[in-house]
């Protein structure tokens, strides 16, 4: 006879009953989903339906490929198994439903026949095993390995055991069926076949087996329905929210913040849950508590109060509060402590590491914005910084003329004297004001440009802060004020091309000024150097003997994905090449200066720059090369704290290049 399977064998014809049975759980599930949906809708509008094809492509890629999830092998593999295991089982069930409820009733045909059926049942068995493996790995990891990144909630064990139970019972039912029917093709359902053998060896009578089969069939059914009922209320909901989140991910440059329309919006920044956009609220549900952000957050690793995972979860909790109690108190300072918010160095590591593209940073800045602009609750030291930026035009309170102090014995044009230039060297406040060591970078930059015979100029005393610190610290008002002044002055001098060695300036000019009507061709100095070296406009006289490690500045790496260029440059200027640190590229450890923390007073926990320097020293190199003046400042002070001034160098890539050319 032809291999096939009688669907409701031994349990009687439940075709109709099944629907009534299924209606309940499906209904509940639907309710659960709608409940979440309404919550997201509380958020503000945000356009996320552009570039649909592109969104689909990237969604499918990340689902099928799993590459981001697989960045961590164990959990990655685990998830892959569960995903495909249950995925295929689900498809199997669908095919059956398709045959029994559509094909057969209408056309009286069946498809699960013969070889197709054999193949079908074999696949189901194999993927069933994958699912089994995945689930057991999950249970083992969460409850035996117990990594720091995972927490354990009751819902977790409930869900996991349910799933486990579904699979197991599924196999048992299959096994019992086979032992009773003993079809010739039993080997095509290997798991069932083996289980059957086991039952037989126990010598259970056929009758009892039939009974058992019936029983387990029902258990299996109930368990599955349990899963359907429970998943919208458990972590498993991510099988809906996460793909959605991936689909609606921000396609803009990473870390770019949405500007505020001071005429329309109210309040400025995020006071309450509804002040988030619907996408940001979807984020909260998309979070699977995998803890990768936490494990990559420098603040957390530095034993500071901030923990990105907790932050998201706390927001989720207040999202779930009944409306009334949600409205009365602002989030910042209540469900999220102010210290947490100020601890963030905006290094973007959390966002980078998140497998489901949650934007922690925009939320933190949103909350900061509210604190700063609506309540003016600011750390003492920051008030001064803001005032300096407004009065002096730079956070250090240096003053415009002082911006030209570095210009001793370096040849440069000042555009307010002569604006016939090819490219503008945007010096930035740190490079022109902070101290001699940072001014040194600027001088080096100018020298390099001169060596390459590039016709460049600077704004000099007319330059202002780029506004990045204000923006990251949540003072959008100040940022706009400054940015617009900059745009006007740049327009006045007809500046089109900018080069800067400060990744912070680089980032705002490249990714954030365009939104304000200031579009320029911006490149980072390391990129320029590479071009010059390749084009042999800049020649390396003698490669440096020094053996260095390279530190990825957050605003160059994670924000702008420039990892390789500086490495290439270092490769071509140093004889011995570079040695990577434990954390580099995407997971590079922040220097601790970002988001205003350069000016932050005493904080709890460790000093990040010292942690990073320890990683650098561990490479046993002669020094560290960075491409950001902020990093340089931080590391220099760390070096001094450790009394290693003489033996361990901290250099900016520009300085190094200047030395060897």
């Amino acid at each position, binding site marked *: 006879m032809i291999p096939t399977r009688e669907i409701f064998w031994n349990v009687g014809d439940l075709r109709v009953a099944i629907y009534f049975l299924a209606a309940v759980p499906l209904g509940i599930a639907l309710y659960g989903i709608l409940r979440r949906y309404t919550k997201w809708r509380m958020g503000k509008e945000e356009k996320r339906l552009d570039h649909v094809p592109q969104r689909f492509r990237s969604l499918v890629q990340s689902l099928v490929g799993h590459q981001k999830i697989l960045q961590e092998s164990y959990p990655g593999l685990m998830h892959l198994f569960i995903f495909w295991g249950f995925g295929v089982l689900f498809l199997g069930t669908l095919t059956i439903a398709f045959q029994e409820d559509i094909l057969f009733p209408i056309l009286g045909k069946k498809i699960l026949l013969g070889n197709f059926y054999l193949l079908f049942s074999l696949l189901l068995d194999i993927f069933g095993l994958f699912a089994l493996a995945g689930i057991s790995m999950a249970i083992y990891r969460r409850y035996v390995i117990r990594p720091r990144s995972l927490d354990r909630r009751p819902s977790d064990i409930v869900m996991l055991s349910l799933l486990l139970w579904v699979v197991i019972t599924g196999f048992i039912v299959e096994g019992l069926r086979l032992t009773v029917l003993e079809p010739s093709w039993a080997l095509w359902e290997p798991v069932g076949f083996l289980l059957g053998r086991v039952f037989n060896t126990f010598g259970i009578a056929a009758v009892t087996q039939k009974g058992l089969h019936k029983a387990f069939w029902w258990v299996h059914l109930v368990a599955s329905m349990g899963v359907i009922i429970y998943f919208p209320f458990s972590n498993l909901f991510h099988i809906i929210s996460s793909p959605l989140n991936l689909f609606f991910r921000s396609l803009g440059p990473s870390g770019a913040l949405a500007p505020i329309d001071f005429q329309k919006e109210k309040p400025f920044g995020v006071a309450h849950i509804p002040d988030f956009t619907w996408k940001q609220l979807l984020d909260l549900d998309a979070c699977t508590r995998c803890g990768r952000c936490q494990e990559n957050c420098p603040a957390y690793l530095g034993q500071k109060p901030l923990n990105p995972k907790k932050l998201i979860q706390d927001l989720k909790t207040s999202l779930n509060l009944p409306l009334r109690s949600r409205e009365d108190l602002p989030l910042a300072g209540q469900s999220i402590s102010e210290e947490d918010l100020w601890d963030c160095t905006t290094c973007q590591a959390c966002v980078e590491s998140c497998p489901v593209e949650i934007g922690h940073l925009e939320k933190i800045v949103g909350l900061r914005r509210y604190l700063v602009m609506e309540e003016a609750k600011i750390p003492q030291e920051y008030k001064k910084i803001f005032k300096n930026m407004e009065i002096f035009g730079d956070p*250090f*309170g240096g003053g415009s003329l002082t911006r030209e*102090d570095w210009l001793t014995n370096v040849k440069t044009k000042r555009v307010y004297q002569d604006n016939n230039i090819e490219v503008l060297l945007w010096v930035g406040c740190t490079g022109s004001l902070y*101290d*001699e*060591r940072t*001014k*040194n970078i600027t001088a080096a930059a100018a020298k390099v440009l001169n060596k390459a015979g590039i016709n460049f100029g600077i704004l000099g005393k007319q330059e202002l802060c780029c506004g990045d610190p204000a923006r990251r610290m949540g003072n959008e008002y100040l940022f706009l004020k400054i940015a617009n002044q900059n745009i006007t002055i740049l327009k006045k001098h007809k500046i089109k091309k900018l080069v800067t060695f400060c990744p912070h300036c680089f980032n705002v000019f490249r990714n954030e000024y365009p939104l304000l009507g200031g579009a320029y061709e911006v490149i980072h100095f390391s990129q320029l150097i590479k071009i010059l070296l390749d084009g042999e406009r800049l020649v390396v006289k003698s490669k440096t003997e020094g053996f260095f490690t390279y530190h990825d500045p957050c605003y160059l790496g994670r924000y702008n994905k420039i990892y390789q260029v500086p490495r290439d440059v270092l490769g071509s200027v140093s004889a011995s090449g570079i040695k990577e640190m434990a954390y580099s590229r995407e997971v590079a450890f922040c220097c601790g200066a970002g988001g205003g923390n350069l000016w932050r007073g005493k904080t709890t926990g460790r000093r990040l720059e010292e942690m990073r320097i320890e990683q650098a*020293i561990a490479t046993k190199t002669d020094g560290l090369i960075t491409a950001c003046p902020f990093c340089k400042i931080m590391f220099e*002070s760390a070096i*001094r704290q*450790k*009394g*290693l*001034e*003489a*033996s361990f160098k901290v250099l900016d890539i520009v300085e190094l290049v200047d030395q060897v050319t």
Partner: protein
Amino acid sequence: MEQQFEHLFMPIQLGNVTLPNRIMMPAHVPRFYAPFLEPNENHINYLQARARGGAGLIVTSPHFVSWPTTRPFHAALESDSVIPALKRLVDAIHEYGTKVFAQLTHPGSVASSRALGGGSIFAPSAIPRKSPFFPLFQEMPREMDLDDIKRFEEAYAAAARRIKEAGYDGVEIGAMSGVLQHLFLSAVFNRRTDPYGGILENRMRFLTETIAAIRKAVGRDFVVGVRFAGDDFTEGGLTLDDAKEIAKALEATGHVDYLFTCAGLEGSQHIPTMYYPLAPFVYIAAAVKEVVNLPVVAVGRINDPVIAEQILANHQADIVAMVRALIADPEMPRKAREGRLDEIRKCIGCNEGCVMRTWLIAPLTCAVNPEAGKEKEWAIIPAKEKKRVMVIGGGVAGLETARVAALRGHKVSIYEKEGVLAKDLTVAAKAPGRQGWEDARRYYIYQMNLLGVDIHLGITVTPEMVFKENIDAVVVATGTLPDIPDIPGANSPNVVEMKQVLEEKASVGENVVVVALQNHMHGLQMADFLTEHGKKVEMLTLSSFAGDRLDQQTLEDVYTRLVSKGAKFTPLTGVKAVQGSRLVTYHVLTGTEGVIENVDTVVFCTHGRPNDGLYRSLKGKVKELYLAGQCASPRELLDSVLDGAFVGRQL
């Protein structure tokens, strides 16, 4: 940005140069090379470290504008070939935004033709220096004729030109501490009857002409400063009143951009010792500042940024110059700026490394900062493998070892049998005018806590304890034991040992004989201590004079104290026996016996003998074993610290 040291870190303009702050490291002789040669690597590293530390201005060591004697050799600055070397130096310093000047000088009679290989040395008049404690410098000079004067003026100008070409920011003319220019100013040494001698105006002529010549050579946009003595502290020499006149006259020339006042002709005032109060000569700068508009520099035993800030805040000077403070801690300006005051390693004014070593024609170092002069080879390098290190003995040797070891990443524990660390320093500080020692002690104790060295006080370590602990390396720095030579009557009650007296553990009678067997500070400070307490003291020394291993500044000061308090010195004499109140002595050369009657107490000042018992019993029984400081062989502070620094780097 307001902060504790707002004045100290306020930039200032000299001529066309703006200094980033008010901290200056003035010219001095570190002896990495002779002043008539060109600077070498050590010198560059040494100064660069100071620049890195945040000094605003560095004046490189006195450069001789011409050969010091009549012999036709050449000083480096006499040819352009020196320029590249100077350039390297200048660039190294500029890297940190520190400005750099060069001091131009001619030693005049502060020289020894013998040491220089013949010829005769120069001076305005044929009068030899006194230099009571430095015979080599008592040579009869040759009176310069008018041609010499012209020649030197040209030499100054030419040198200044080369300095400018080397990329310096300015020059400074040295007219202090008895060099040629100073000799001309000072009526004591200038007895000329021609236009270059007589009234002050004439005595200044050589200087003013030199300045004019230099200005002509370097042009307007280059800083020219003058360093001159505000008071010779010598009968008939310059006084503060003269100094004011000089200052006015210099300003009147219109060629000078800043004035640098200091004190002393050939005495200890030039490098004030531990016996001086802090910042003793600021009043000179203040007085000069009142009569001129030029920026004025103050110098002299300013060992602490807090004092420096006060001086500036009180408008007593515009710039504060510190040599020894910056030798002792190149990072001082930076630490001050960051408010890490307790981490600053203060100069204690002992003059052991900076002055004494250089008088021995050895490169400079520092009793509290052994890295000084070894910036490169003694840079802190993290240890390859982190060891558990046990330092036994909390004296300076032990402490320095612990400090270096901890910095290099070792896990260090230190054991001291006394209840406090560095007891010896407190004891030494009990002698009058020696409180400076406390600063060194204070620094080490703070460092130990800062570096997380675990400290065990009041524990006498036995070999068993060492074996019990699981230790990779053991450093024995157990110091010395008291050591009274065994002569007849040595154990009689009226014979005591220095430390007992200082700690007031021994009763001392009225008439005391101090037997200075250790010929460094011990005998002298003992006598000083006793005379201060009103005792009659006679000092016996085996050598030709007491303390012949000390630098001349300290000697001068302590002798002045002792003589004025009527202490009696008996050189070349040793002790044979103590017979109650009779002391039997012998002459070192003739051996003839002598007797000192009714002596109440005999105080022996000895090196002590090495306390290296523990070392011997540990030898070969532990993985790594080191010996550091006095217990290797009894010496002074400097040597102990150097030992510690060395061992710390061996680990």
